[in-house]
């Protein structure tokens, strides 16, 4: 009877931690150490942000740090202390990235449009460099540090300087050989001739600017032993925001859409990131190159998800019925063997099946079809069938388990009553068992639909979306679903990366998933469980 006991120190103030017991000093210590680590990290990040002049992020980072400290240092507010760590990651890597997808969907972010205008101007000046005729040759040695290549240049007057693509030339105190050419520099490793040959491509790409201003020109080498002065062939006029080609006199003006364009429509390859409004969405639904494939992909995504759910459910239910007999021998063995595909990692399943279905050497063609050349993965229709069969292979065991569970939980009386009334086995099943079963299984079917709607692994590993559509230049094909199309557009090798368009497509998937979730919410009792 705690209430009647003589009031000890703990009983009088049960809600306040006394701070005297060894456990709570340990707790306090842990708290101080953890919070200290977090703050130390925050300070480190803040200093870096400050040095990089990223003010907006700095303000956010500081605000988050203050919030964390406030949560853990104040008295009370217990729930926040337990929820904060999980919510921190949730907000950044689930909520924020969704919102950020929404933002990117309204920009032209992608290859050639991935930074600010100032960066773009700089990059154009650097890339449009041409060798200055009659300029003196610099003798160079190629140095390496941390995997980057540097040029050690000896100018015609004997002065020595060092630099790399992102580090303008600066004077260096190097060791020279008999001819006065600088060959070694402390802190760097000099490349031997063979190494220069092996890294030819990277070394030819090294462009060492003379100063921070690209208009001053740069040094480049074409043979690894001598370098020449290059100057931009395009000159930038800041007042009018135009580039002028110094040779032809063509002017490239700012289009307002993140790139420079000449009067006859020629565009400079490097642009910058701007907001483009609904352009990505209109592009998705009007651009010939995207619209038709997108329509086919959307149709196939729905077909794939719906047929996958129905086929796995049908087979699973059929098997559950077949094995729902108490005295059937070997039931457990069947069960374990049939569950194996479900246990097999899905990405491996896709890869393994792609081998099985290989037209020339695949097991299926050589063994089951006597060496026939059936194009399982390269014919548009057969590829779709193959994808569905493989997904059936992966998915039916789950439905089998679910249906077995649901069948066994049906009350036996229902079955008996139906038999008494003279119903056939088939009629008992369709009129009584199935409706009862659907009540408990429907939410799972919807969840399975949502899962298959974004079933990236099977498609990507099995067919990689192929065979390709022939009405588009993008690397999308007949078995691509929306999420693999997003991946292809954002990270694929077919055409340039287009993060804006990919995000716009992600947003479309978001909306579809939201509708599906809304439907499933109405179906489930999950809401009622929360009190």
């Amino acid at each position: 009877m705690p209430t009647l006991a003589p009031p000890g120190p703990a009983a009088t103030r049960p809600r306040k931690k006394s701070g005297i017991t060894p456990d709570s000093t340990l707790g306090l210590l842990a708290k101080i150490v953890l919070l200290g680590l977090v703050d130390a990290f925050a300070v480190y990040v803040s200093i870096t942000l400050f040095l990089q002049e990223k003010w907006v992020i700095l303000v956010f980072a500081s605000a988050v740090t203050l919030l964390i400290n406030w949560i853990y240092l104040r008295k009370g507010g217990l729930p926040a202390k337990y929820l904060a760590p999980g919510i921190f990651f949730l907000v950044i890597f689930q909520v924020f990235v969704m919102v950020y997808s929404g933002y990117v969907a309204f920009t032209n972010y992608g290859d050639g449009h991935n930074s600010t205008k100032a960066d773009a101007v700089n990059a154009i000046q650097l890339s449009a460099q041409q060798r200055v005729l009659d300029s003196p040759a610099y003798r160079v040695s190629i140095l390496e540090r941390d995997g980057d290549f540097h040029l050690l240049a000896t100018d015609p007057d004997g002065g020595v300087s060092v630099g790399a693509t992102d580090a303008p030339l600066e004077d260096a105190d190097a060791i020279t050989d008999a001819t006065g050419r600088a060959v070694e520099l402390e802190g760097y490793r000099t490349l031997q001739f063979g190494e220069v040959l092996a890294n030819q491509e990277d070394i030819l790409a090294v462009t060492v600017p003379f100063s921070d201003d690209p208009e001053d020109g740069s040094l480049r080498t074409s043979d690894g032993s001598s370098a020449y002065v290059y100057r931009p062939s395009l000159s930038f006029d800041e007042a009018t925001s135009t580039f002028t080609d110094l040779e032809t006199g063509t002017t490239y003006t700012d289009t307002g859409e993140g790139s420079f364009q000449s009067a006859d429509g020629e565009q400079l390859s490097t642009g910058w990131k701007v907001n483009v409004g609904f352009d990505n969405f209109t592009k998705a639904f009007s651009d010939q190159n995207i619209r038709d494939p997108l329509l086919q992909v959307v149709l196939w995504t729905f077909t794939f998800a719906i047929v996958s759910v129905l086929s796995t459910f049908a087979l699973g239910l059929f098997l559950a019925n077949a094995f729902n007999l108490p005295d059937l021998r070997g039931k457990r063995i069947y069960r374990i063997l049939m569950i194996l595909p479900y246990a097999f990692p899905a990405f491996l399943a896709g890869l393994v099946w792609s081998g099985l279905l290989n037209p020339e050497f695949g097991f299926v063609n050589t063994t089951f079809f006597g060496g026939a050349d059936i194009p399982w993965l390269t014919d548009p229709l057969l590829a779709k069938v193959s994808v569905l069969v493989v997904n059936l292979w992966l998915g039916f065991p789950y439905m089998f388990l679910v249906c077995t569970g649901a069948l066994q939980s049906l009350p036996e009386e229902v079955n008996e009553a139906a038999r008494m009334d003279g119903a056939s086995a088939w009629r008992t099943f369709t009129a009584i068992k199935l409706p009862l079963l659907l009540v408990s299984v429907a939410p799972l079917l919807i969840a399975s639909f949502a899962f298959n709607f974004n079933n990236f692994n099977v498609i990507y590993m099995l067919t990689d979306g192929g065979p390709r559509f022939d009405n588009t230049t993008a690397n999308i094909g007949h078995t691509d679903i929306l999420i693999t199309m997003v991946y292809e557009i954002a990270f694929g090798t077919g055409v340039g990366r287009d993060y804006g368009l990919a995000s716009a497509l992600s947003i479309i998937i978001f909306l579809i998933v939201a509708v599906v979730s809304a439907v499933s919410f109405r179906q489930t009792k999950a809401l009622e469980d929360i009190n």
Partner: protein
Amino acid sequence: MTTLTDSQPAVVEPPAHGSGSIPQRRRRTFGQWFRHKGWRHTVGVATTIFAVFPLLYVLSAALNSNGTMAGSNVLFSRIDGGNFEALFNNPSRPFGRWFVNTMVIGVVTSVATVFLGALAAYAFSRMRFTGRRVSLLSLLILQMFPQLLAVVAIFLLLNAITDVVPWLGLGSQLGLIMVYLGGALGVNTYLMYGFFNTVPKSLDEAARIDGASHVQVFFTIILPLVTPILAVVGLLAFIGLSSEFVIASVVLTDPDSQTLAVGLYSYVAQQRSENWGVFAAGAVLAAVPVMALFLFLQKYITNGPTAGGVKG
């Protein structure tokens, strides 16, 4: 094997069966037997073959050091460990590293997931605060949107982080783990919340009266009592992570830091048929731990309807 011995003698000589264990109850004709049970065995054998032959095929290809896809088509024609040797001796495709990476990323992420989820579930189950219902609902809604939908934004975010804290950005396993932890709440918290609610509140009240702090109640009273759900959530998270390809492929670019999913994909992406045997060996090694865990967990996975969304 048992499936065959179970059904076949019965098919060949049904009378012998009748005279054995069930003495002369009634002699059923083959037709009757088939209508009642035989078709079930036919279905069972057919489905088992469908389910198992791809797995046998990988196993056979893995053990056949002939190597090419064409040479792997006669099952178990040759058994040796050549492919496994080749698998571990390819410096440009470090399978051992991939395996370790997958284990490390999987274990760290699932332990952290369980911990973060348990903290949140404790708060939801034991404390009453404003916004509790809304938070639970938001979690339930948020987990409907898989992280891979935002893969582009995740890539761009990590790209930006690379400029500030390089060891948390693109190419960093720690960065990848952080991304995965974004999904740590959601369905896990919801599962654990239900389980936490089954632990009687009188237990923690008693402990509180004895002077235990809320932290002590959490670590010494609640956590030991909910170990089963912690194990299930952790193992499920691990199984899911070991198959994760999309985000890992975008974040981890250096072969030495990749996971099995990304690495094994690259093994066959370019030249599927030449590397086949070695790939199969890798596939077997990658699949065995996951399958073992899965079969061990099987009964938990189908029990809760909410757990159903995990796979399938």
